């Protein structure tokens, strides 16, 4: 299919982009990587009247690891994958990107785009939530920071306002005891997950889990923390299979997924638990390496 007609403007600065979004309101959409938006436009499921192209805004591109990992919103996923800095600061982000579609999608797709698109089955939003990250957005009223816990509000919905532009995505740097893992099941290896689990834990030298953030994706309208599972592992040894089984069961019990053409609700519920257990096992064995 071919897209419906629209007007197009290439912004050169953040101010221009914000001004254009403000000017056109609901009619306007940000065009970053386009890897999620343009397929929808080609199917005429999205028909924005105005596209504000932000790809030429230089300040929105770049990986900066200074304590935390701060990535410009329009930084290409492929560039992050190739960044030694990013891998050293937050290896889980690089690992998660390997699950995102294919190399040519990642060569255009942006980190800001995938966060703002908020597909509930996507890996990066779940990783942002698991690592306790945040985003920076700029609007007509100025700049604000939105923590991951408050960012994802529903199917393809974030706390971003229509006239706000996401400018950067921040991941806290992994400390010395930090260990992470991501497990997912997809129909095809590079597809959206039927269900997925991310674990970001702090593990002591004796193998005790001091704290953990456990996030499930693909099982609800947004990535979800699994508080029952987190509690099941806190202050416990991850080498204990009973602890892991407990966490898996709590994770599954705490969600109420829907079924669709790809997987039933029971499937997602059962497999979410399995994936939590497997992610915790990976963490017990050392987690994602830089």
């Amino acid at each position: 299919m071919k897209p419906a007609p629209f007007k197009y403007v290439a912004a050169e600065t953040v101010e221009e982009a914000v001004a254009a979004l403000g000017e056109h309101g609901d009619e306007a959409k940000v065009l970053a990587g386009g890897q999620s938006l343009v397929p929808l436009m080609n199917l005429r499921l999205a028909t924005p009247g105005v596209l504000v192209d932000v790809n030429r805004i230089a300040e929105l591109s770049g990986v900066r690891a200074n304590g935390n990992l701060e990535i410009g919103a329009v930084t290409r996923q492929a560039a992050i994958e190739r960044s030694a800095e990013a891998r050293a600061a937050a290896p889980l982000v690089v690992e998660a990107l390997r699950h995102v579609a294919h190399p040519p999608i990642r060569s255009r797709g942006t980190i800001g785009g995938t966060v703002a698109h908020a597909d509930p089955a996507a890996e990066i939003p779940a990783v942002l939530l698991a690592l306790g990250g945040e985003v920076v957005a700029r609007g007509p009223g100025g700049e604000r920071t939105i923590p991951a816990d408050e960012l994802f509000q529903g199917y393809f919905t974030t706390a971003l306002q229509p006239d706000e532009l996401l400018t950067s995505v921040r991941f806290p740097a992994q400390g010395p005891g930090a260990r992470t893992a991501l497990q997912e099941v997809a129909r095809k290896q590079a597809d959206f997950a039927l269900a997925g689990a991310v674990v970001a834990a702090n593990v002591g030298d004796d193998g005790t889990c001091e704290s953990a953030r456990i996030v499930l994706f693909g099982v609800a309208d947004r990535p979800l923390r699994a508080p029952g599972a987190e509690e099941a592992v806190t202050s416990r040894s991850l080498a204990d299979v009973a602890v892991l089984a407990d966490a898996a069961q709590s994770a599954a019990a705490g969600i109420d997924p829907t079924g669709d053409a790809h997987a039933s609700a029971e499937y997602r519920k059962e497999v979410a638990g399995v994936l939590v257990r497997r992610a915790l096992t990976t963490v017990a064995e050392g987690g994602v390496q830089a």
Partner: protein
Amino acid sequence: MATTETNAPYVGRPIPRVEDARLLRGLGTFVDDIQRPGLLHAAFVRSPFGHARITSIDASRARELDGVALVLTAEDIEDLAPIATGLPREEVVANNRPVLPPETVRFVGEAVACVIASSRYVAEDAAQLVDVEYEPLPAVIDAERSLAEGAALLHDGTESNSFAHIEYEQGDVEAAFAAADHVFRKRFHHGRFHAAPLEGRALLAEWDPGAQEMTIWMSTQIPHLVRTLLCHAIGLSEKQLRVIAPDVGGGFGLKLHLWPEDYLVSAASKRLNRPVKWVEDRSEALAASLHAKEIICDLELATKADGTFVAMRGRYVGDAGAYAAYPFTPLVDALCAAVMLPNVYDVQAVRFEVDAAFTNKCPAGAYRGVGWTSGQTARELLVDEAARELGIDPMELRLQNTIPDGEPYVSGTGCKYDGGSYGAAQRKAMELIDYAAFRGRQEEARAQGRHLGIGFSPFLEPGGWSGELAKRMGFPFDYMDSARVTIEPDGSVVVAMGLHSHGQAHQTTMAQVVADKLSVPIESVKIIQGDTAQTAYGAGTFGSRGAVIGYGSISRAAEEVAEKVKQIAGLALEAAPEDIELKDGNAIVRGAPEKAMPMMMVGFTAYFGAFVGGKRPPGIDPVLTSTRSYDPPETYANGCVAAVVDVDVETGAVIVEKVVIVDDCGTILNPMVVDGQLVGAAAQGVGGALYEELRYDEDGNFLAGNLLDYLYPSTLEIPPIEVGHLQTPSPVTDGGVKGCGEGGTIATPAAVVNAVADALSPLGVTIARTPLDPSHVLSLIREARG
């Protein structure tokens, strides 16, 4: 790759493809690459409902849009009669498909209006402006419920929703079942798949009002049949229509059909006196082109106590979709499946019943392997289950019941197998996949909590799709396939044939055949295909027929031309024609090779005689061209596929570790091409077993309308595939060629599914459908757990 023992310079050798250079350079010509002056573009308004009455349709807003040349709805096309699909057999009730439905839409995606505009973009804008009001009706989406008493009839003037009810029996089947020691039963619902060629449907119709002739470029496998079937429908005689199939981006059987879109685009060109192009997009392809292979099979196998098969019964209900696919009909699924019920097994008491039931889905027709795939999967699963119950190794049970190698055999459904490596192929597959070591590996893996499985699928591949074979499969038709071989004055050899390659390298393989026959260098040969104005009539390329038909027709024509060459050369070299041989581009006197006449001299002598100082032999027509046809007898390739899988019983995910395909297609023209066909077909089989599904919900809504829902297998889903060869030349076809192309799709799903069943059998799981997606596999495991 097979190594053929051959002395011939070309046939049997892996000659690299002549078609590659232009395709690699991006200089191929596919329909959408063609530009014509004044070109307009078509788009269609399509039904969002599976079953509904059209209460009103108003195209006025669309017609007013700038750039729109024409909008057609049902009331605008009274000159386009419904497409009538039938077969000359009494069980078939002909089905009519309106070119645009005046009252009722019967599947999601059915075209209800056609827009012609200055660009595809504008045509789609206009399509959105056509106002259609629908009154939804209940949808029928289950083939068995469609046949049940009291089911709503989907077509006016019919007595049932079955396109045809066909029964067959040989031997006293009931008695055999009654006397049997064991009866094994299996119900299997084969999934609905899509051939999904990467290039979808496409045509460009150009009416020339001056010459009163139309040219249609179409992405089709059957240019001559398209010409014959389409011309009168649009008010033309056959001589007024030229159909050209340029480069075709895959067909796999889908492009053996004609659709309302083809009629509308051609008719629009004639009305507007402008060329009109339509290129199907992926959503249209998935929803509204052609589906395939969905059959509900109920099979029964009767055996003696020692496992000897004594009788088989099969009931096949094909899900035909909303209309009978034109022209091959939905019977290519259920009827073909039924006719191959006995496979390679020695069973002479066979009964089958077939129905092709209409439902509110996209029409279903031919896709590589047709219904043989579905029947194969159901039957081989049943054989494995029988083996497990009998406590016999499944391959031992198969080999025990397989017909002897090498001898012709008439099957329990009357098929005349021409002798093959029926048992040897199975043993070779077992060897290549290292079956002997597998059970040990499987046990070790189970001890570690991993579930490996192995599955086998010995198969037959009916080849040649000739008149005789078609009738055996239940389709009373003869086909005319011919080839014209011509030697030009300069000695170049040109072959114009009715076959048309859509990936099978006819331009190379057929050149190999004629180059050997006339003993000329292959560089001096040109193959013309696909253009009805340039080629001899043919039914086209499908049904594993290319090699068989091509070899036969080209050989016969070439032999006639060779006779002329020998007579001309004989006169020039002062020898009897019987003593003339063709060798390396020359005509030579046998035993005196210094007496040689190059082909170019033969050509000039034939065409221009005295002008070049040559003499034409008296009393013969020196024309160096011949058109001959070939309609072979039934012939059957055979083989065996084996697959090893690793099933993750916690997530239901199935990884295919390895696939082996052993094939015996008789004489091989080009082993490289054959390997490519086997592997490509096997990959489609893996896709069908695990990933691909055209799903509908209860209301007839279509759930596979894009490529995130209909899953093409990629390099990560298809494992390494190993090929093994055996060669039992056919005793009944020219050159012993049996044909190749469908074996992988016929047999691979069964091997993969059997492997999964083998992996999960300790858990008490039985498999009754495809595809085996993770959600389904896990639900089977959960159910078996209780």
